[in-house]
């Protein structure tokens, strides 16, 4: 068996070769999988059932709201049903969490192409050396992707008399 790590690095290599590489440095995708290291989904879920679910889900996923869109109402639209530590594309291919954007751009193609150009989304790191490109789910909650309202930082002080 090929170990998970091997698979990830293979996929990373594949992705990087496909993505346009900047003259001044390369673009590295933000990793997602590390976050799951301590609590892999497979700890609790061997498989995922593909029936429609109601939110809030009782138990450990109380916080989870499934407000993506009306017809996305089951876990297995995006999560692999056979390997809960993996995601799944619509054509059945399983992919790692590090490639979660591939799930998103199945529908959001236009945003995806903007994202690939560095227009949509956020890139950190260095503008001239290596850029770290955040994935869709770094900013959007995949289960409830619409951006929420923020509390803004304080406004400037209206100038009055200094005294």
């Amino acid at each position, binding site marked *: 068996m090929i170990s998970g790590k091997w698979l990830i690095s293979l996929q990373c290599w594949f992705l990087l070769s496909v993505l346009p590489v900047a003259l001044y440095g390369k673009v590295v995708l933000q990793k997602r999988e590390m976050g799951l290291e301590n609590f892999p989904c497979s700890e609790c879920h061997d498989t995922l059932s593909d029936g429609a679910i109601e939110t809030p889900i009782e138990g450990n996923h109380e916080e989870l709201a499934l407000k993506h869109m009306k017809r996305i109402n089951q876990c297995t639209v995006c999560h692999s049903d056979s390997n809960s530590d993996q995601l799944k594309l619509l054509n059945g291919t399983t992919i790692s969490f590090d490639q979660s954007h591939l799930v998103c751009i199945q529908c959001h193609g236009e945003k995806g192409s903007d994202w690939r150009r560095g227009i949509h989304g956020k890139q950190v790191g260095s503008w001239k050396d290596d850029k770290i490109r955040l994935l869709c789910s770094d900013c959007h909650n995949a289960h409830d992707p619409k951006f929420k309202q923020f509390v803004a930082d304080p406004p400037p002080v*209206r*100038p009055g*008399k*200094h*005294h």
Partner: protein
Amino acid sequence: MARYIRFWLNMFKESFSGSKTYYLWVGVLTALLLPGIYSYYLQLSQGLVVTNMVDQVSWGAYIANFTFLVGVAAAAVLLVVPAYIYHRDDVKEIVLLGEILAFCAMLMCLLFIAVDLGRPDRFWHIIPFIGRLNFPQSILAWDVIVLNGYLLLNMHIPGYLLYKLYRGEQPTRRYYMPFVIISIFWAVSIHTVTAFLYSGLGGRPFWNTSLMAPRFLISAFAAGPALLIIIFYLINRFHPYFRVKESVSKLLITIASVTMPINLFLLGSEVFKEFYTNSSHVASAQYLFLGLHGHSTLVPYIWTAIAFNIISTIIFVTPVLRSKTSWLLGGCLLSILGIWTEKGMGLIIPGFIPSPLGDVVEYTPSIHEFFICLAIWAFGALSYTVISKVAISIVSGRLKE
């Protein structure tokens, strides 16, 4: 050299001799310097925070007074031209008083600029060749040159003539006439350049008008004669023996009777353009004349100023009224106050309101700005009184070698 030093010593001594009225006047002016000096000390130690200027309104009373006084300085040319070019003897007798006024006004201008600086200790950065004057790019660099140049011209011409008179010698024409000719054009240039300071800024639509320079000159040629008429009246009233001929005031009032209406006409043209076009750039004019979003500090001032200008214009153009001394002096005072308001605060402050990003922050001078301005005016009046007193003594032959 020793002679020259004695000349200065004699002048210095002369400045301390005078009537009780003279001492009282000089004493009052000196006293007025004190609160200003204290306020400036505070400004130096704490920064311009003691003024009411802020990021949105970054120029205030200092620059407003500066602008008006450049006009006063330029107005001296109204005596220079008839005296040196048309050889009017009555004007020739007092032309030095006009040049000294230009000199004192210039001193005040430079003081107003100096107190407006955040870092006056770095003044040497603007000295050509020693500092890094951004010439010819920056209009302020031009202003540095023309203002200081005008100061020097008006220091040299009366200075040279007075020295020669003091020594009882005939002045050599080629030592002063070329400078007189230059000073005529230079006078126009100082106010033009000062207008271009404002009108060259694309980001301030209220100032970005080609009428700015003509308005500046015309209003200077209106307020300047008015001020000279008042000064000459005061000299005739208080000076023990020297008298300015009435024909000089007649000439000046004739000039003002032409320039005052033109000034009103130019103001009207601006008002028409702003309000008839009614583009989004009208906001500043709206703030000045009508108030903007409930902010209307300047509105009463500008309407009072316009009323003053209209009343004084009527007095100046009506023979029955202007021939009466009290009416004439009243008219002169009103036109000075009117123009001072209109082209001082009435021009500078609305340029900042609303700010380029739409903020409306109002401005009124702080108590420290008030005292500093007062002190500079007092300093100007003081130096004019003293210098012209000494000059009169020399011209009338009482002070000589």
